């Protein structure tokens, strides 16, 4: 390759890539030039001067920093010359001269670059007499991160990360000379969502995890490769444990997924694992009260309860609800149990059949990084998937990719140049129609009659032209547009635009739950079999029947809300695994109370579990093996890292026990005794997973191909969307959505993070002024269905005429407000 050139280091010729940094070229040749400030993921800075080498120049040899010097053909360097060695040693000496050397109590001890460099390049003995300088040793930068200013060697990695990756330059260097310290800017917070990555980046023990501080010495930790299950990105983690207890999460590099980053939810929000509130033993309702029982007894009760209903009412009276947060193994076995043994297709999960989602998720996460145009519709990556948001920000900043945002709120990504639309709920189809028309016109194609009236504004034309001309656009839509009343129309309308622009095959969906793709892959849907095969597909059904050893019912089942609604009718028993419908909407309680039999399998005694006849304590994903399929269809293994709490058992194991007891004569088809073995069976049931195995997933996971599932998208008219009526007093349109710092069950259990959640209903400043309301005032948001009381947050990110109530607020579940218009209802807003 012409790209390869020759340079000389200490008289030895080595091959290097033209333009790469000397540090990289040298490393390939086995010369490891010491560095502090330089980091492969950050722009070169050249501040610490640890990497000095001599370079042959026009005016003789000069010292240069290897970490900032791109190499070119014929360049000559001296790494081991006396002058270079002296310079590096001198630098290290001045660093050490002021470093506190409190290694014995430092969280970084044993994995510290400074310790390592001092051993390798240090002078052995310092000859300074002057006292070390003193600074703050315990300076909290935020609730999550603490800074020891004495240990800081001012490498700027933390400063650069926040600027270069999250585009939130929240840290800087203050004062000057030897008084220089890292700090926040006056009056501001360090609240970047991926701020914890600076702990991993810090070469010394200056930045530490406040939640995990002083709990361990790094060298006694056991490391387990895992992933994060807080969102659909599936960032790779290393879970560090000691005594089988989780001590901390650190990011694990996977270039195809998260690069080397995780967000603060993934890093810090693991308090749920060791929460006091975890269920530790099975419970059963005895004399009207939930009381502890043994596992065999619990299983016996579940089997009897379900069988009793089947015998009396038939299998159609039983349903199973799984979860997009749980593993493929758990969801697969729940589906298999319901279909093969109980004999019903009543299976689903919350984000299952109700979501008008592209089941394949996004084309690929790499596409987000390579994008020349970004299109985001009804999703907010900054809140739903912060690491992806950082990739998008970088594409916007470094590749000049314009950002087209279509969202009811002015989301963070609207700070990048592009075209931004904020249609009110109900107005989306008209906007997409206009974009579709403009796209067709831009491509010189005929505009169908039903689009003739669409009004094309200049902005619409600009956005449409951008997309038509893009080579490599990254296009996603999200839950805000794909869920609830009217979503079928909106999704068809937006699909029309993308198809009309010539990019139909790039339209992806941002699955915000960890295993939403996987749960559908393994067939936890009322009308779909594993592998996205239709229930009506006889061939597929026969294949599965062979694998499962039973007949599969052909009648499509009920979906998530259908099952709950029918609890007052034909559904008599439900098996709910990892879901909490009552927590979403309290009126579901009276429905579930009407059931003859309710089993809940969970980590916690949720509002739903409180109603159950039998409660089964599940082990968390950290305490069991499992696979998860992220939003780019990458199947990834999360290995067991910690010991299960109390008597809790992995979801898959519980289902296996129940199945064997439920149908002893079928036990041959329920023999698998490990999660990897269950996964092996899944690879036979799901064609897209064929050839995978627990081992083959390795450290990087394996994606199934975008075109392994054919999806046809066409330009088509759709049913007109009738928005919810705006009539007194219901004069505001409700907006919902996910915020990263929510108050959901798993998150709220991390005590240190509990005060990060921002509980509020949001209004535009004009609306607040119109109602004579101030920041923090308690307001009521009332629909035809229910009313919530919340403190007010005033923000110009909200459109006038709308009120934003985030999901997962403690004691204020927005679901309570949903009526027949679901999340797109209209509400009254007034002082409470």
């Amino acid at each position: 390759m012409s790209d390869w050139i020759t340079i000389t280091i200490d008289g030895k010729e080595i091959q290097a890539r033209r333009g790469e940094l000397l540090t990289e070229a040298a490393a390939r040749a086995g010369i490891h030039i010491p560095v502090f400030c330089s980091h492969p993921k950050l722009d070169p800075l050249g501040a610490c001067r640890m990497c000095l080498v001599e370079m042959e120049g026009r005016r003789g040899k000069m010292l240069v920093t290897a970490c900032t010097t791109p190499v070119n053909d014929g360049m000559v360097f001296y790494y081991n010359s006396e002058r270079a060695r002296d310079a590096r040693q001198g630098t290290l000496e001045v660093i050490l001269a002021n470093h506190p050397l409190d290694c014995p109590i430092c969280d970084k001890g044993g994995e510290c670059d400074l310790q390592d460099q001092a051993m390798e390049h240090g002078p052995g003995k310092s000859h300074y007499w002057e006292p070390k300088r003193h600074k703050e040793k315990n300076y909290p930068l935020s609730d999550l991160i603490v800074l020891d200013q004495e240990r800081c060697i001012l490498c700027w990695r933390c400063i650069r990360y926040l600027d270069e990756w999250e585009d939130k330059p929240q840290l800087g260097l203050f004062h000057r000379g030897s008084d220089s310290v890292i700090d926040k800017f006056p009056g501001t917070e360090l609240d970047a969502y991926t701020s914890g990555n600076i702990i991993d980046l810090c070469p010394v023990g200056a930045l530490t995890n406040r939640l995990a501080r002083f709990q361990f010495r790094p060298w006694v930790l056991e490391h387990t490769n895992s992933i994060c299950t807080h969102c659909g990105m599936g960032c790779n983690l290393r879970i560090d444990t000691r005594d089988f207890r989780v001590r901390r999460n650190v990011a694990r590099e996977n270039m195809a997924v998260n690069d080397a980053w995780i967000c603060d939810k993934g890093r810090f929000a693991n308090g749920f694992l060791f929460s006091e509130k975890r269920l530790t033993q099975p419970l059963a309702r005895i004399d009207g009260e939930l009381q502890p029982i043994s596992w065999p007894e619990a299983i016996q009760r579940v089997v009897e309860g379900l069988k009793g209903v089947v015998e009396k009412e038939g299998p159609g009276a039983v349903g199973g609800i799984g979860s997009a947060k749980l593993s493929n193994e758990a969801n697969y076995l729940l589906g298999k149990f319901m279909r093969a043994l109980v004999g019903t297709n009543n299976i689903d999960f919350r984000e299952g059949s109700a979501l008008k989602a592209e089941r394949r998720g996004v084309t690929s996460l790499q596409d987000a990084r390579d994008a020349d145009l970004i299109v985001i519709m009804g999703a907010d990556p900054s809140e739903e998937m912060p690491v992806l948001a950082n990739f998008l920000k970088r594409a916007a900043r470094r590749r000049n990719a314009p950002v087209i945002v279509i969202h009811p709120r002015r989301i963070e990504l609207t700070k990048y140049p592009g075209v931004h639309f904020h249609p009110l709920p109900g107005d989306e189809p008209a906007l997409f129609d206009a974009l579709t028309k403009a796209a067709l016109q831009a491509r010189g194609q005929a505009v169908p009659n039903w689009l003739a009236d669409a009004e094309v504004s200049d902005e619409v034309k600009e956005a449409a032209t951008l997309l038509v001309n893009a080579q490599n656009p990254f296009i996603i839509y999200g839950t805000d547009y794909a869920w609830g009343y009217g979503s079928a129309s909106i999704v068809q309308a937006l699909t029309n635009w993308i198809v009309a622009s010539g990019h139909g095959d790039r339209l992806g969906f941002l699955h915000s739950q960890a295993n939403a793709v996987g749960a559908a892959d393994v067939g936890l849907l009322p009308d779909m079999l594993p592998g996205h095969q239709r229930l009506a597909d006889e061939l597929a059904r026969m294949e599965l029947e062979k694998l499962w050893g039973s007949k599969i019912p052909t009648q499509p089942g009920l979906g998530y809300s259908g099952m709950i609604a029918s609890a007052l009718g034909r559904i008599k028993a439900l098996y709910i695994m990892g879901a909490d419908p009552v927590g979403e909407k309290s009126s579901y309680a009276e429905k579930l109370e009407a059931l003859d039999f309710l089993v809940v399998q969970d980590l916690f005694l949720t509002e739903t579990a409180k109603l159950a006849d039998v409660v089964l304590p599940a082990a968390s994903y950290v305490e069991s093996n499992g696979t998860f399929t992220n939003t780019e269809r990458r199947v990834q293994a999360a290995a067991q890292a910690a010991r299960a709490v109390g008597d809790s058992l992995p979801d898959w194991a519980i289902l296996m026990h129940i199945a064997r007891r439920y149908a002893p004569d079928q036990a041959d088809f329920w023999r698998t005794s490990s999660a990897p073995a269950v996964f092996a069976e899944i690879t036979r049931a799901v064609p897209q997973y064929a050839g995978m195995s627990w081992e083959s997933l390795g450290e990087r996971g394996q994606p199934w191909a975008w075109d392994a599932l054919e999806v046809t998208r066409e330009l088509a008219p759709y049913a007109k969307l009738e928005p919810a009526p705006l009539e007194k007093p219901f004069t505001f349109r409700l907006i919902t959505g996910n915020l990263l710092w929510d108050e959901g069950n798993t998150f709220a259990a991390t005590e240190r993070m509990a005060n990060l959640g921002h509980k509020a209903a949001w209004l535009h400043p004009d609306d607040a002024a119109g109602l004579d309301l101030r920041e923090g005032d308690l307001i009521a948001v009332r629909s035809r269905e229910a009313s919530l009381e919340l403190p007010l947050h005033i923000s110009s990110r909200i459109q006038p005429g709308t009120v934003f109530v985030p999901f997962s607020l403690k004691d204020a579940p927005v679901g309570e407000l949903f009526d027949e218009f679901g999340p797109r209802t209209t509400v009254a807003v007034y002082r409470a």
Partner: protein
Amino acid sequence: MNYEPVLTARIGVVDPACLHDYEAHGGFQALARAVELGPDRTVAQVEAAKLLGRGGAAFPAGIKWRAVHNAEGPKFVVANADESEPGTFKDRILMEKDPYALIEAVILAGYATGAGKGFIYVRGEYPRAYQRLRQAVARCYEAGYLGKDILGSGHEFHLELRRGAGAYICGEETALFESIEGKRGYPRLKPPFPTEAGLFGRPTLINNVESLVSVLPIVLRGPDWFNSIGPANSPGPKLYSLSGRVRKPGLVEAPMGVTLRELIEAHGGGVSGSGEFQAALVGGAAGTFLGPDQLDTPLDFHSLAKMGAALGSGAVIVFDTSVDMMQVLERIAAFFAHESCGKCYPCQLGTMRQRDIIQRMVAGQGRPGDLQLLRDIGQTMRDASICGLGQTASSAILSAFELQLT
């Protein structure tokens, strides 16, 4: 001694507030001449004059002018008027007493290099210079020297003033760019050099005030005239800021290469205080000391460089025998420890250590190895620091020990 001042010719003669008076004293003739010559030949004049930068580093101005002239636009011209080297005051006097000269020179540089915009970065402690320049810029816009189609050349040029806020480091050219860009003034890594990627990442010509003002007579009188003054490899008239223990301190214009003795005796009226010369600090805090044996040294860039010293900004601070040099060194060490920006370790810690050690010595608690320690720190700072501040922070102090002044 029959040298006729050129750079300071108008000082005390012209009314600094009056554009017409400036015009009446030869003002804007150099610019008119440059427009006659055209950009390319104007740059050639600067090259032929072999003008070395007067800001301290003595870099050939012609090379920078040519590089920016050849670069793709948009590009900038910046006048470095931060003048914060201790003992230096030449630029202040030029700006206060003859502000139009600097403005004319910046416009001329913009025309020659094809830059559409210029900045003058004025030291924060120079309120009068700033006021005078501000008024002068406004007059120049009114008179058409700034704005569109300057002197019928078709060239459009705009000029903005920026004020520093008291940091020595902001005189370093890349830190100065950061400061103009609204950021904290930390030096950048070089390369890339300003001529490739300077202000706002664009090709930028940055010159010291005196360097720019020197271009006016070069264009008017020609490079041969310039080369006829001073030594061949370091030619031209030079401004010396003479201060300390001399009878007549002040700004001196002399041919480059005037000797230290001549400067003190003929221009400064001789040593004051004890009347006996002990040492002179040449080049400011970043410079070097010269002792009694070196009084006949010609004060030009090359002669001083040959002996390991530097002319720097042309500051000359004289000390008579009654001065306690350790206290002077302590002052210098404290200056650097205070002004180190803190971006790189060798300098931020080296300047602190250097100060601590000298303070200890002043307090009478010196140790046997102290001098070696200062040399080691000095070497680390010189070799490993990012910018000139750290690289020169030990030079005055080490030279004082070398001369055994203490």
